[in-house]
């Protein structure tokens, strides 16, 4: 059976979303197992019973990895959603509210883009007292500028289009024009931007947790799992770092696949291919 591009894209999107949902579900179900210690089975290499092995406290690494990833995905979703909404609002405000507002927003965009993400993220996270809240706020506040810039440019271009000028002359309100003319054009951009923010958010969350500025050590976040595993790499317990790291990369790649697929699906031109 030969599949056309649209069908392949749909399959890719379906598979990646299914896998991500499965990771989340598994993580929620394995909450208890991720924390349970059992010294009779400590430092077991990967085997049939413990697919990812166990750590120095005898905790099941499969459960810990899944739990950590689901936590990361949750944080990624929250942070990316906040970030994308921020970008949408600031982008539209910047393009429609006049020169002074535009200058202010553009300055903020340049400012946040000018500082390395990870540095700003560390500062915000530490200032808010680390933990879940700090990480989410930090990731949300550092990831909006590129999407905001994109949306601003799009709105500026749309504003000049004849059909919006005509709608104004037909006596349509600003709200009507935003709802009927701007949003349908911005929505695909927004959704794709949102999905492509997830992997960034997850990676940054893991990195600052790994560096010790993120979540506390009681939570089995993927960054914590990885940073603890570092100490045991030299003693030969390679499975502690390999499998969680591999799964993190897979999750990030799958989010990219999902984002790219959505982009292809939402481009009206791709329907006829």
């Amino acid at each position, binding site marked *: 059976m030969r599949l056309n591009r649209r069908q392949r894209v749909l399959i890719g999107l379906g598979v990646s979303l299914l896998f991500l949902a499965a990771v989340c579900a598994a993580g929620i179900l394995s909450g208890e197992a991720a924390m349970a210690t059992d010294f009779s089975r400590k430092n077991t290499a990967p085997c049939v019973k413990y697919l990812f092995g166990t750590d120095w406290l005898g905790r099941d690494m499969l459960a810990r990895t899944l739990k950590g990833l689901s936590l990361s995905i949750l944080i990624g979703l929250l942070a990316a959603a906040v970030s994308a909404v921020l970008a949408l609002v600031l982008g539209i405000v910047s393009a429609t509210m006049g020169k002074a507002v535009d200058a202010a927003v553009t300055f903020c965009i340049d400012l946040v883009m000018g500082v390395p993400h990870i540095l700003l993220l560390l500062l915000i996270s530490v200032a808010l007292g680390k933990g879940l809240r700090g990480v989410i706020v930090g990731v949300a506040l550092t990831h909006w500028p590129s999407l905001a810039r994109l949306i601003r440019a799009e709105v500026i271009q749309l504003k000049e289009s*004849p059909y919006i000028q*005509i709608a104004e002359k*037909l006596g349509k309100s600003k709200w009507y024009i935003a709802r009927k*003319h701007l949003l349908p054009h911005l929505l695909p951009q927004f959704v794709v931007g949102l999905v492509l923010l997830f992997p960034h958010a997850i990676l940054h969350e893991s990195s600052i947790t790994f560096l010790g500025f993120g979540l506390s050590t009681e939570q089995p976040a993927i960054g914590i799992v990885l940073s603890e595993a570092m100490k045991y790499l030299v003693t030969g317990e390679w499975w502690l770092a390999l499998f969680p790291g591999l799964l993190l990369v897979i999750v990030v790649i799958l989010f990219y696949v999902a984002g790219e697929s959505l982009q292809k699906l939402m481009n009206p031109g791709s329907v006829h291919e």
Partner: protein
Amino acid sequence: MKLEIKNVSYQYTKDGRKILEDFCLTVEHTERVGLIAPSGYGKTTLCKLLSGYLLPDKGEILVDGHPLASYQGYCPIQMVWQQPELAVNPRLRMREVLLEGDEVEERIVRGLGIEEDWLNRFPSELSGGELQRFCIARALGKRTKFLLADEITTMLDLITQSQIWHFLLQEVQKRGIGLLAVSHSQPLLEQICTRQVRLEKQ
């Protein structure tokens, strides 16, 4: 109703060529005025000034003695653009495009030869001529007092042209809408207009 243009000047850039200088014209709502001039003489610019898309550098545009800018909301002077493809949102179905107009009557939709089936389509699924009918219908809302037709049938075949103009003439006469028709074609304007104006190069 009376549409007056008094000593209007306009140029797109500060040191650019003057498109219009001290231009005067009065159109009554019973009149059908033809505007003829070669490319680049400011026909479209004049239409955009008259319907409020552009503001004149000098002079004023009066509708019934009141400045055009004092009409908030629905503009009584509606312009039909030369390129229908740009004048409709590619993401709205044609049914919604019609709804944008001011309670466009079913009679107008039928009269312009718009078929029921077209209403559910997107602009990319219609031809330029079919789209232009929607644009004309949208501009013929209840509160429209003057219609500016900026080369609205240039891209159409003769049969469709005559169908559209036949209906438009009936409609504007019946409702007392003033018509300003722009065209390159002298014979067309002679057919449809009560008088003609020629724009001069500045």
